[in-house]
């Protein structure tokens, strides 16, 4: 396993499958009465958040705590950063305090890359979203969610399975994923295109042309301006949050026009295959890119994605920091845990 997680593009298929499989193990911990492992006891994880993101921060916090790490939350607001401290000096401070891993969310694309390559800190760097660049743990939790629903049962049966364990060891070969919305500004889309392609899925991006970056033709995916044309062939449809403010920069004329052309409502959802799922990284703009009917439907995995996010972040921290020790110590007291040991990857 690599030392840092900066970009989904850095992950090989085997890396990605290992993370997903490890996350399956972690998910089983969440089913226990005591949701905690001693794996990272004595290690320090710093959540360094230059942007407000309560959802992502508490997900990483829960993940680190379930692995028994000490967690320090460093928010730029109200800290020395807001008084003009540089990223370098903040990093040197965290290094001096003995951070084993720094989970960084930053408004500037490339900031985690700088942190990992500048020599300012020795610990692992986890990108929790940088500018409009990448958000690799989001892509991993999305892939994890898709794999559970779409990768097929171990017996090669139906593609629509729920419950832990489904798909372990598998990728997303041949699955068709449609990502809809503000591709231009989306770090979620960038990470997903890389990761899903690595896992064998076929990705189609759908957006008005104004929200597709110049240069997208070199991405390993298709681009469509017509949502209705691709729905019937989608195994998963991921709706991205579209900021209403984009309207003011003339990316689209009005909210209503956006919702009409690119929003997912019940009518459109009905055109998706029976087994297909609707995904959303949250927070949702109900009425904009997704209607309440779709958001609250059985097919929408938004809440499940949040749960899976903790498992993925546990797996990421464990693999980056824990190294070679088993994630879950063998405790042959219960059959469930014995099974865990058997399925664990070496």
């Amino acid at each position, binding site marked *: 396993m690599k030392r840092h997680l900066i970009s989904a593009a850095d992950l090989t298929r085997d890396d990605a499958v290992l993370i997903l499989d490890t996350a399956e193990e972690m998910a089983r911990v969440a089913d226990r009465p005591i949701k905690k492992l001693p794996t990272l006891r004595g290690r320090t994880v710093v959540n360094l958040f230059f942007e407000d993101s309560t959802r992502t921060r508490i997900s990483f916090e829960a993940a680190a705590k379930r692995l028994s790490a000490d967690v320090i939350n460093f928010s730029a607001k109200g800290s020395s950063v807001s008084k003009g401290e540089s990223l370098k000096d903040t990093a040197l401070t965290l290094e001096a305090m003995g951070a084993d891993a720094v989970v960084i969310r930053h408004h500037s*694309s490339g900031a985690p890359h700088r942190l990992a390559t500048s020599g300012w800190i020795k610990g692992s760097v986890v990108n929790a979203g940088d500018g409009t660049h990448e958000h690799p743990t989001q892509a991993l939790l999305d892939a994890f969610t898709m794999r559970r629903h779409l990768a097929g049962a171990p017996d090669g049966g139906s593609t629509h399975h729920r419950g832990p364990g489904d798909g372990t060891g598998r990728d997303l070969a041949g699955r068709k994923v449609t990502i809809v919305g503000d591709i231009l500004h989306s770090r979620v889309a960038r990470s997903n295109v890389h990761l899903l392609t690595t896992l064998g899925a076929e990705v189609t991006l759908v957006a008005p042309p104004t929200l597709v970056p110049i240069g997208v033709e070199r991405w390993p995916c298709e681009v469509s301006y017509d949502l209705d044309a691709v729905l019937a062939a989608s195994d998963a449809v991921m709706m991205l949050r579209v900021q209403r403010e984009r309207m003011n920069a003339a990316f689209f004329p009005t909210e209503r026009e956006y919702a009409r052309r690119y929003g997912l409502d019940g009518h459109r959802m009905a055109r998706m295959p029976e087994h297909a799922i609707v995904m959303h990284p949250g927070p949702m703009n109900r009425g904009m890119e997704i209607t309440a009917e779709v958001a609250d439907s059985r097919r929408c995995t938004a809440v499940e994605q949040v749960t899976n996010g903790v498992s993925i972040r546990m797996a990421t921290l464990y693999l980056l920091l824990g190294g070679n020790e088993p994630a879950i110590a063998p405790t042959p007291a219960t059959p469930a845990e014995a099974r865990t040991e058997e399925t664990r990857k070496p």
Partner: protein
Amino acid sequence: MSETTKTLLRGARVIGGESADVLIDGATIAAVGQGLTAEGATVIDAAGQILLPGLVDLHTHLREPGREDSETVLTGTQAAAVGGYTAVHAMANTFPVADTAGVVEQVWRLGRESGYCDVQPIGAVTVGLEGKKLAELGAMHDSAASVVVFSDDGKCVDDAVIMRRALEYVKAFDGVVAQHAQEPRLTEGAQMNEGVVSAELGLGGWPAVAEESIIARDVLLAAHVDSRVHICHLSTAGSVEIVRWAKSKGWNVTAEVTPHHLLLTDELVRSYNPVYKVNPPLRTEADVMALREALADGTIDCVATDHAPHPHEDKDCEWGAAAMGMVGLETALSVVQHTMVDTGLLDWAGVADRMAFRPAAIGRLTGHGRPIAAGEPANLTLLDPTYRGVVSPAGFASRSRNTPFEGRELPGRVTHTFLRGRATVVDGKLT
């Protein structure tokens, strides 16, 4: 500074041609010929070296007054001398802005005191570089600094009426407006060239059209009012086409290219290392090749460094927070040898033309960009073209170290620079 009155350069290839001896007497070239002798002269064995007219830079940021932490007129002119320059044009975006006779005279005076290189101040086009109100262009021209080139560099004169008026107004004293071509609305939040790499990196795009649309407008404006416009740091293949078209019409348009745009591409930004952050941004391989071709065929008139010193902390940070710009004076000639001479695109006479004759002519400098002949001012640069060395900013004369060429092997080394007969650089070292 060496005060030797007579210097004999023995066996130098004059502008890359035949070997000859060149005798410098006082501030003047006394003789050029074979087997020259001179009693009491300092003799320099220049066999195998290229003798060029002292280089002229149309685009230098000396940072003084205001940002003496990154460069001063003294350190900047020292860097210029090391790079083989005998004259530099100091850009107006200082603090305070060089938009009055007082500030341009201050910069001019500091240049005179430095003694390493002539400093010709550039005046701002508009007050405070704000693009709203014309600065006192006439007063700057009439000052001791005799300003001829006017530029809001760093900012584009984007208001078409202000640009038109500036172009018209400077005709009264044969001035030229040097435009930083950047349509501001198309470049809001711009961090790098807009294209394949920016799409992947998620960095705000600086599209080629933002440069090209302004150049297209300005060559038309210059033609309409029959004035002359100079395009700063042209960076795209499309810009080349527009300038080529304008020149074919006989319009008075000149253009410059920086050394870094002749060699580096936006692929380097993948490192997120802010040393590659510059404005205009590094473009694509196709742009680089078009720029080289245009410099070779004369569509682009000259190489200008856009030497932009920044303190370490302004580059030792994340990309978004970093300052734009690169130092260039001390590596320019090596980059031009590497990209233009060693590739066969330009001979040394071409280098002399693009780095001395034409920039001096655009800036209407007298005493620089002159032929190497008896009776001419002894502003000269001696280059060892066989040298190969790795760029190490630790040894720079500039106060700043933000070079994108660090660690790169480049050819050529300036061994001597003479400013009006006085050696400012001897054996590659400042005197």
